[in-house]
């Protein structure tokens, strides 16, 4: 990993892009009465950085985005949810993209989205001290498939454009 100024600036650019996406996304109200369903658009950036640079860089971008994002939009509780979901998601995606050699990015993204939801449910179970939230899992699995597919394809298009540049 090169620690040049250019690299640093690029990473902070990506961080601010994902932060803006994250904040904008928080304003979108999705007409499904299930907590935790969202588009996960900010994951495009995480996926892109993971693919283009390294897991370390993606981790930094992710953590900074969650910290600043919770500061701007949410509360401490949403920060806990985002952390557990985001870290599980990143680990899973890093593992998968290594196995698949960076191909099938859409699948990596789908698994990431599902892992994100699993992480959030685990966090919700710990925070609320109840196992009832596990009933949301099938819905979140389904939503993870759909939104993960979308963000995965978005990340693929971005990567293609970037490489053609």
């Amino acid at each position: 990993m090169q620690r040049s100024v250019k690299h640093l600036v690029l990473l902070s650019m990506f961080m601010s892009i994902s932060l803006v996406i994250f904040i904008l996304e928080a304003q979108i109200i999705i007409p499904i009465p299930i907590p935790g369903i969202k588009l996960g658009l900010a994951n495009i950036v995480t996926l892109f950085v993971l693919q283009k640079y390294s897991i370390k860089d993606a981790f930094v971008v992710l953590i900074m985005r969650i910290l600043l994002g919770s500061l701007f939009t949410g509360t401490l509780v949403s920060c806990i949810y985002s952390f557990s979901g985001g870290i599980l998601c990143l680990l899973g995606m890093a593992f998968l993209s290594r196995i698949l050699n960076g191909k099938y990015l859409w699948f990596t993204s789908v698994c990431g989205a599902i892992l994100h939801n699993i992480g959030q449910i685990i966090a919700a179970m710990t925070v609320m001290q109840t196992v009832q939230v596990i009933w949301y899992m099938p819905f979140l699995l389904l939503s993870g498939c759909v939104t993960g597919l979308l963000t995965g394809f978005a990340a693929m298009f971005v990567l293609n454009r970037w490489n053609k540049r």
Partner: protein
Amino acid sequence: MKHKKIVISVFICLILIGIIGSYLVMHKQISNRNVIITQDGKELYRIAMDSVDKPYVIEIKGENGEVNNVLISKEKVQMESASCPDGLCVKHGAISDGVLPIVCLPNKVYIQIVDGNDYETEDLDAKVG
């Protein structure tokens, strides 16, 4: 290329599990259903649904003049009307099982169906407490 088949089949499996699971959860039957209406963390009503003969409306008044009208019948519970600006709780429609509660965030009203057999009030209080 051998990855392609695995990837696609796993993806299809995930979607199928999601659909089947959602279907099962949505049609989960509970016996002895109890409706619990909570406002601002305080339990206001607990009604055994089987004992409801004729549908009726419960009016819940908030501190600042908010009103929520809850329609309760033998089969289902729904938010009939509410004074909240977004009206999400009314749009949610009727619930008849313990999966998804009706939540009215602006008026802090929470409607939930629980299994009267295995659900204790003290338990919930301890969890929330």
